[in-house]
């Protein structure tokens, strides 16, 4: 994501909300490094850390509660910040974020466009997030041309990263 964001105009998108998984410390570092390069006020960006819907090995019954907690957290964040566009690249919780971002559109209130960029590592098959978001995103970008055969509505753009 940090590499993709090099192509985004931070003067135009002068308020940025980063949604990351709670346990993802590496992304926190990357966001800090990316934003530190900007000559701007720190208030331009927010990081929202979302709990995992289910930990590895967690029982399915307790996972119902943690999934609800995750969903609640995502709703709170998305509706509080009211984004104008969503850019995601496939980590675990992004499907929930995109589903929530579609709710205002469903009720005819606000259309928040969703732009999905599949991982560079996905040469021959989509990730699970990609398979779901192919049907939800407004723009779906892949980085290898072989994926267009099975996913003809996708856009192939080489050398993004």
């Amino acid at each position, binding site marked *: 994501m940090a*590499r*993709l*964001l*090099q*192509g*985004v*105009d931070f003067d*135009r*998108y002068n308020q940025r909300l980063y949604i990351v998984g709670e346990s993802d410390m*590496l992304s926190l570092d990357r966001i800090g490094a990316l934003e530190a390069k900007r000559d701007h006020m720190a208030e331009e960006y927010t990081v929202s850390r979302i709990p995992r819907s289910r930990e590895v090995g967690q029982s399915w019954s307790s996972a119902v509660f943690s999934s609800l907690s995750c969903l609640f957290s995502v709703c709170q964040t998305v509706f509080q910040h009211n984004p*104008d*566009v969503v*850019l995601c690249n496939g980590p675990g919780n992004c499907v929930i974020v995109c589903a929530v971002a579609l709710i205002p559109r469903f009720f005819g209130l*606000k*259309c928040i*466009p969703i*732009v999905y*960029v599949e*991982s*560079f*590592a*996905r*040469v*021959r*098959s989509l990730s699970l997030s990609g398979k779901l978001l192919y049907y939800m995103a*407004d*723009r779906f*970008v892949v980085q*290898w041309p072989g994926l267009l055969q099975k996913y003809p509505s996708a*856009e192939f*753009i080489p*050398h*993004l*990263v």
Partner: protein
Amino acid sequence: MLVYVTVGSTGFDALVSAVCRKDFFQSLADRGFRKLAVQYGSSDGVFELPKTASELFGVSVEGFDYTRWPQRYVEQADLIICHAGTGSILEALHAGKPAIAVPNHELMDGHQSEICQELAAAEYLLVSEPGQLVDAIDSGRYLELVPYPHADPRPIGEILDEESSRKK
């Protein structure tokens, strides 16, 4: 000349073991490498250098689990041997360094090797199993690789601009 070996944020026992072997040191020395840095992550248990100095063939070794400044090693390296994670591969390629990617078959997904195969077919890097590293280095094929194209992520910005200004 420096070889930088990196396993990324987890561990990779097979790779770390392979770069501790006497034959690996010999092939490094034969190709003119005098320094080896190994970022072994959680594979500290298998990071065991040969016991006798002669088995190092004059190569000095630095080993660590993680570093806050991997870029420093990438910049100084003359050859990078990395696990086949996208981030590590791209770092090496964009730094313009010869790279040998080693897929970790213990990891869940087989798709790690897909990206290696594509990039190797285009001759941007070499792919090797841990047991073939010595051959890969001896062959010198890492000196015949093609420069990797610069990244241009501006199309993503353009797509965001198009979508966010579309009348709904």
